[in-house]
């Protein structure tokens, strides 16, 4: 849930493109054939100039790595001879996947990731929705100020957030733990039992405000006539929240949920930064850490590639699974 801030990305196919005017683009119908041909050529050139740069960059820095990873995951690299010769690449099909999935510690890291997602996703969605509704509610004073304050952590890099919370998790520097200790409560957020919650808290702190922002935008998009009509009918604030606001922002809630799922699967930075502070985090604590470790410490990029592909597939499975689940009930969200 970190570097990429996937949580912020909006993904949802655009609404159907606005109807084009008859001569909207490309060939100008109605003019003479030569003129039309000329127009078309102009448009084609312009189209190419506008689309090609992004398309080329996207292919180079998005598609190529994915293809490369998939391809790499099917090979195995072995140093030939005594290790002095050029490394030999042999096609091993799914052997790397078998190795990854046969490794108990990798399976454990997958399980940990799922446990983390089970904590983080509901926590994030409930917090973001709750804060958005509170700020949007009639009773809220200074909604602008609160909105900015909640949004601020989004600007703090995940690494810095993890560093800061790290200090707040060790008794020597944490005012929270010190106060609790005076009150007779001894907490150790970095113990094996609570470390996942400690990490979830960092991610929540960083992204709840951003997700809230998306939801507030959705709440603002609700036509105010709906509220007026409801008020005339004598609806309470509570009823307006449950019967009007929540159902109408459902697509955005789904969106935030999908982002959180994708973000959760990236879990890497927080455990990496907290690792020196606790024995509860191993070098292959999450699948991403394991892949990073395989690539750069163990020198097995092929196994690392297989691990990365497994995480990506898991992400797709969960995102689409969730979308199918919510789309089956009632209206399609997107």
């Amino acid at each position: 849930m970190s570097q990429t801030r996937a949580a912020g990305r909006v993904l949802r196919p655009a609404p159907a493109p606005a109807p084009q005017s008859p001569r909207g683009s490309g060939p100008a119908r109605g003019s003479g054939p030569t003129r039309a041909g000329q127009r078309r050529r102009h448009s084609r050139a312009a189209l190419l100039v506008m689309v090609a740069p992004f398309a080329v960059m996207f292919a180079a820095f998005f598609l190529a790595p994915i293809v490369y990873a998939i391809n790499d995951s099917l090979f195995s690299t072995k140093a030939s001879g005594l290790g002095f010769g050029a490394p030999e690449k042999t096609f091993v099909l799914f052997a790397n996947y078998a190795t990854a999935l046969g490794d108990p510690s990798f399976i454990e890291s997958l399980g940990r990731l799922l446990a983390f997602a089970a904590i983080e996703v509901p926590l994030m969605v409930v917090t973001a929705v709750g804060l958005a509704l509170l700020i949007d509610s009639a009773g809220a004073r200074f909604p602008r100020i609160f909105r900015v304050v909640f949004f601020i952590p989004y600007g703090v890099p995940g690494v810095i957030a993890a560093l800061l919370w790290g200090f707040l998790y060790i008794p020597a520097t944490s005012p929270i733990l010190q106060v609790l200790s005076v009150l007779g409560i001894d907490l150790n957020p970095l113990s094996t039992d609570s470390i996942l919650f400690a990490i979830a808290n960092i991610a929540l702190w960083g992204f709840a405000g951003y997700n809230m922002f998306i939801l507030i935008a959705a709440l603002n998009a609700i036509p105010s006539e709906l509220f007026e009509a409801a008020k005339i009918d004598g609806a309470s604030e509570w009823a307006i929240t449950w019967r009007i606001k929540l159902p109408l922002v459902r697509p955005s809630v789904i969106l935030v949920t999908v982002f959180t799922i994708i973000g959760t699967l990236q879990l890497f930075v927080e455990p990496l930064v907290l690792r020196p502070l606790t024995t509860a985090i191993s070098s292959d604590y999450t699948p991403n850490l394991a892949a990073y470790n395989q690539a750069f410490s163990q020198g097995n990029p092929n196994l690392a590639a297989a691990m990365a592909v497994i995480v990506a597939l898991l992400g797709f499975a969960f995102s689409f699974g969730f979308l199918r689940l919510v789309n089956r009930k009632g209206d399609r969200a997107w």
Partner: protein
Amino acid sequence: MVNRTRSIRQPLTSTVAVNGVLLIAALYFLLPILWVLVAATKSPGELFSSFGLWFTDSPQAWLNLTNVFTQDGGIFTSWILNSVLYSAVGAFAATILSAACGYAIAKFPFRGRELLFSIILGGVLVPATVIALPLYFLLNAVDLTGTYWSVLLPSMVSPFGVYLARIHANAAVPDEIIEAARIDGAGDLRIFGAIAARMMTPALVTIFLFQFVTIWNNYLLPLVMLNEARTFPLTLGLTLWNSQTQRDPMFYQLVVTGSALSAVLLVALMIGLQRFWRADLTAGATKG
């Protein structure tokens, strides 16, 4: 934000409850930042011996600041400048690239347009951690790893930017205006650059800001790509210092003060630019 329902008279208890919860949430979101600002005024010893949320008798904020900026030959300044360079240049290029592509997808019917858009949208779903590792091996093959380009180039691709640009071009650039400009003899590129881009300004600002923050916060990409401390962005630099705390506890204070500085920098940017985070831009995700 306009509060449409404000006219309803609220019972006092619910007002108190709503604002009480908001206040507690505000404390939660501000706590780490307050802590780091206070901690940045302490000596390394006091960091561990005094109460975290209050200043000590002998604050030394200035000394800490000087230390941060003079450590390792002033490398902290390079890190800030690198972060600004990566974020500003990367976000600027990303904005232009995705705006042009998104606009073209919105306004030019061409074969394969929906397919192209679907593939780009699919890119949003791919976790960056999955891309970073193979990207390292790819760029290593063309000898680009370790250079500024290895971080800059991948940062220029924002599938989310294309999505936003398409939505906004559809909503904000009427076909009639494009048609009128064509009749006046303007070429499509000129129409985009001189007319459409201006009408899409709010979207462009949002794409820029979003990508800026994304690059600024990025850690994994520079981590795998860069090996020379002089080329590091802030995120990577501060973790480099953090890894040296076991050797020399003085580094704790450098990390704390450096973190405080970087937090202040971004918080100032967020507050200064918050009105540009156009709420209606997510409208594409909420309407329809």
